[in-house]
């Protein structure tokens, strides 16, 4: 048994940051919609995070910190400024309506192939696309999403609900051959 006089742990930036590389790249690629831009964004993120690592407070959420740097870099980029549309955070009753007569909805999603869902994700406004990716692909908790996006927990829930609703609407349009973007 060892005592508290043991060496304090040392953690390298690499040890913490590299396991996140694949998911950060995937997220960046979804945001930018371009391979070169995604690589630039990830490189900028790692470079900024490495420089700021001494100010990172161990014990806080490292993953949310990395995603936040990536997202802020994206928002200040030319592409980010163009694509990040403001969305009205007001929750309206529509968002909480049932998932549209459940049985047809189930059939709709079963029939939607992966490419179709991917296309619909691209068509979604960035605030909706990113929150869906953080929740479903990143498997982040609402709290972690709130930290990453810098928004209150209540906004996470309402925005997520609206994003799912928008996704359903777009999927339905695609199925019906409409395919109008948002």
């Amino acid at each position, binding site marked *: 048994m060892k005592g508290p006089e043991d060496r304090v742990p040392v953690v390298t930036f690499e040890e913490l940051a590299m396991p996140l590389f694949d998911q950060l790249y995937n997220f960046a690629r979804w945001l930018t919609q371009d391979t070169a831009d995604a690589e630039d964004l990830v490189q900028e993120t*790692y470079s900024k995070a490495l420089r700021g690592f001494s100010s990172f407070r161990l014990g806080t959420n490292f993953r949310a910190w990395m995603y936040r740097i990536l997202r802020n870099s994206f928002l200040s980029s030319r592409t980010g400024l163009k694509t990040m549309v403001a969305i009205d955070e007001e929750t309206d009753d529509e968002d909480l*309506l049932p998932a549209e007569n459940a049985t047809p909805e*189930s059939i709709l999603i079963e029939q939607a192939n992966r490419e179709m869902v991917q296309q619909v994700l691209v068509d979604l406004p960035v605030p909706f696309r990113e929150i869906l990716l953080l929740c479903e692909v990143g498997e982040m*908790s609402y709290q972690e999403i709130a930290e990453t996006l810098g928004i209150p927990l209540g906004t996470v829930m309402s925005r997520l609900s609206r994003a799912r609703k928008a996704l359903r609407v777009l999927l339905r349009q695609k199925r019906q051959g409409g395919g109008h973007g948002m």
Partner: protein
Amino acid sequence: MACEQMASKERLGQFDAYLDGELTSAEASALAAHLRGCATCAADVLGRVQLKRAVQLAGRRYSPSAEFRNKIEKSVSAKPRRESGWAWNILAVPALSLLVLSVVVSLYVSRESGRRQRVYSELADLHVAALASGTPVDVVSTDRHTVKPWFQGRIPFTFSLPELQGTNFTLLGGRVTYLEQTPGAHLIYQIRKHEISVFIFQDRGEETASLASGPTHAASFSMENWTQNGLRYFVVGDVNGDDIQSLSRLLQEAH
């Protein structure tokens, strides 16, 4: 809509939170009970499950090239190590006056006893809350080689888990937990149908020094705690002290 529950906005808002694992265990149990008896709501939830799965599958779309990975790896490797024990540096500053130090120490000592009790109670609560939860662990596996990597990127440190072959212990899985706003690993082991929680946090020396290493009891639970390689381990369970000690030894000898 036939179901009155479904007409309620609160209930509908709960469906997504339920599937996202954000309800308390009591709320989740109540909703699950309702879903078992209500075809309308169950069908709605099924649609939401399918939507979640569709996004999960579609969302994992892009992978970085090997060249790009190498480039980033090179740019971040072999950089100076970050000392996590930043607070030690503060204590090491020679200019820190004795007066300030003595005030800090006296405040610290007076809080020590209360804090120790609070930490032990909080750990006992975490242990009970996890076992009472519908999903006690987020990574379900008896394989330490599955459980350990799951924590990568979720907590800011790594640790070793013992080989359990030839022992009576079984690893059930793990989850991320928080103690005093600090993230850590919560592992659940089983022995003779009793669950034992193992908590691992970074040892922030100045804060955990008051937690003297060694066995103790809190709320009728046996506990052991120690520091090793800069990590603070707590082993908590309603088993006898020998079992707690055996598991502790296995963890201490893990490579």
